[in-house]
């Protein structure tokens, strides 16, 4: 901080420093006002925090797809939100069928596992087809080309699914075993939220193991490091890239089901857009290309979004604070890009990657 005192004076640095101070001041004053007024009880804070953590774990699962692909291809797959939608939307029908037969409430764990695998496979298929049809022919072209293609693919997928399943809203059936709440010292935490967080955590640990400990994970890391050298080492690059898209897709699909347990309503063809953008924000927040970064970024974003409006904005006397939740999310993105472009956990990217 205050670099300009020692180095040559620069208006840019000065402005950024002033900005830093103002932001910290706003957060401190807002939080102080809210907390000292005592309007919101401890139980309510815990409620908000728990919901934020669950939402964050869903962001994290989707964010991993962005980060995996970026790590290997250095491209942002903007159609990834639609990969999430594909799994979530398709599985709603499967879930309804499981509910009708009563299986969902007789064997909730098994049924949910089935749903997750089903959604994962659907999204995986969509992601792999996307890579094979839309991105692979463009490999080696300027970086803007696949980016624009991804946006086009995103619309294509949205309207394909609208054509398939219609434009109405669907909802995941309620699971009896996940209703109710754990009560700890007068604070109620819904069972569904705990379940959502834990299952997301398990999936993330599986991914970590896959990338760090397995043979294919080693290949993925090698391709990410240097494609040409990896090819010389006998690694089938095309296969590894396809596998990466598949893994990202599987996580997105399972996030679709987990999201359906957490927030069962509002399933439609457009549901992937906002989570997609938020997850991208989370990936950048954590450091794009960095796997633990995406996980941390997602959780962080979820919690900030949940607590920020009530804690900071309401404390500053801003009306309609809850409507500015998205503003908080995207302000975080801008701030990270200004102050720490490499993200929370990101390393400085090499020239080639940046």
């Amino acid at each position, binding site marked *: 901080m205050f670099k300009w005192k020692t180095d040559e004076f620069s208006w840019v640095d000065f402005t950024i420093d002033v900005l830093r101070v103002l932001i910290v001041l706003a957060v401190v004053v807002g939080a102080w006002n809210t907390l000292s007024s005592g*309007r*919101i*009880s401890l*139980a*309510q804070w815990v*409620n*908000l925090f728990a*919901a*934020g953590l669950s*939402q964050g774990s869903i962001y994290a699962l989707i964010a991993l797809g962005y980060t995996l692909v970026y790590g290997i291809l250095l491209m942002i797959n903007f159609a990834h939100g639609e990969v999430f939608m594909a799994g979530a939307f398709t599985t709603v029908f499967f879930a309804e069928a499981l509910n009708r037969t009563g299986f969902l409430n007789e064997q909730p764990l098994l049924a949910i596992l089935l749903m997750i695998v089903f959604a994962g496979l659907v999204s995986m298929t969509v992601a792999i087809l996307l890579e094979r049809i839309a991105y692979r022919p463009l490999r080696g072209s300027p970086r803007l080309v696949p980016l624009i293609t991804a946006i086009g693919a995103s619309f294509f997928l949205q309207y394909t699914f609208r054509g398939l399943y219609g434009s*109405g*809203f*669907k*909802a995941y*059936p*309620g699971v009896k075993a996940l*209703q109710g*709440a754990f009560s700890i010292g007068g604070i*109620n935490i*819904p069972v569904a*939220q705990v379940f959502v967080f834990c299952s997301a955590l398990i999936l993330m640990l599986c991914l970590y193991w896959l990338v760090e400990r397995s043979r294919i994970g080693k290949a993925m890391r090698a391709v990410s490091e240097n494609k040409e050298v990896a090819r010389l080492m006998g690694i089938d690059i095309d296969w590894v890239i396809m596998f990466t898209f598949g893994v990202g897709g599987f996580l997105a699909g399972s996030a679709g089901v987990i999201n359906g347990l957490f*927030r*069962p*309503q*509002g399933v*439609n063809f457009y549901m992937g857009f*906002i989570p997609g953008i938020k997850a991208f924000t989370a990936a950048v927040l954590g450091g794009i290309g960095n796997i633990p970064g995406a996980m941390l970024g997602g959780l962080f974003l979820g919690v900030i*979004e*949940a607590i920020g*409006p*009530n804690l900071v904005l*309401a404390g500053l006397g801003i009306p*309609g*604070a*809850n*409507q500015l*939740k*998205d503003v908080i999310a995207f302000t975080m993105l801008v701030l990270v890009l200004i102050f720490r472009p490499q993200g929370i956990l990101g390393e400085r990217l090499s020239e080639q990657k940046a």
Partner: protein
Amino acid sequence: MAPDEPIVIGGMLVISGAVSYLGEDSLGGIELAILHRDGQLLGREIEFVLEDSLCSAEGGQAAAQRLSADESIVGVIGTNCSSAAQGAMPIISDAGLVMIAPSNTSPSLTDEDIAAGGSHLPGYFRTSHNGLMEGMRNAEFATDVLGATSIATVHDGDPYTEGLSRVVAASFADLGGAVVFEGAVNKGDTDMASILTEIAVVNPDVIYLPLFEPEINFFAAQMQHIDGLEDTVIIGGGASFMAGFPENTGEAAVGIYVSGPLVTGNAYNTFLAAWDDEVGGTPPSGYHAHAYDATNILLEAVAAAAVELEGGGLLIGRGAIREALAATEDYPGLTGNLTCLEESPFAGDCATGAALAMFVITEAEVYDDNWPPPVAWNFASDSPGQAEL
């Protein structure tokens, strides 16, 4: 008008497209109204000319243009959709004609204040309830029936939901209640925890929620997990009076009140029997009685405005019809006693808002596809004082 010429009324209904059932619904009401008079008015044949106004401003404009070009038309029934009415109204008004809409609810159509989004022009009338009346009735229900003393309102920035929220809040305050929270969510929001927490801080008896799907589903479902809102009741607006709402919300929908149209009474049962005989089956939507009433008050106005000429001719001035229609008072219709109001924001509103009811969602709607839900309160018969509008 020569002695043997028929009296021609026009229709602008939605005949094609996704909501064509609304047009069929109104058409049946209009035909039954004409049939009820044996197709005769003032000793002349009644002729009905129908144009498709679609459910868009452009469709309304085109239909209005075709009808206003026909000099023999004395008045028009339509449109079904508020958007089509926006397109049709300037043309109908310029031509000196009248239009009576059987199923428009947008408050802007009877509001003359252009700065506030109003678009009313002389010649526009409707027999369907104004969204604002729905709001007033809902506020009345909250205070008189539920005994609520505090209310929170939440809209989504849409002029329709925002208008309703404002009316409910104002009416609730007029009735002596406290408006403790007025807020909004964004369209597309899935996380309602932060606004719910804000509402829990003020802990109202009732939350008025005119939202659409899916925001209303998220809101209702997540309310279960918020400390401090265990005893708060949700009243949903007409936007949630749809079969998919309880199922998509799940268990949390049980006990939510939603308002919607309801017509009852002996005259209405006779009407339904006539429908079965003449049209067949049951009406496909909820505004056929409104179309029946619209046709009747138009024909009454034509009769009142007509001047017999020597030699059997008839003089019917368009301006006179408009005046006669505006003077409609306590006309006994199927949907209640119709009185056409003149003051903005109710300019041209002929409905009383009595053909409305409050329904309550039960487990049968959530789990067994039952629709419509049971009536919790019928404004026509259960209201203690029929609050003045």
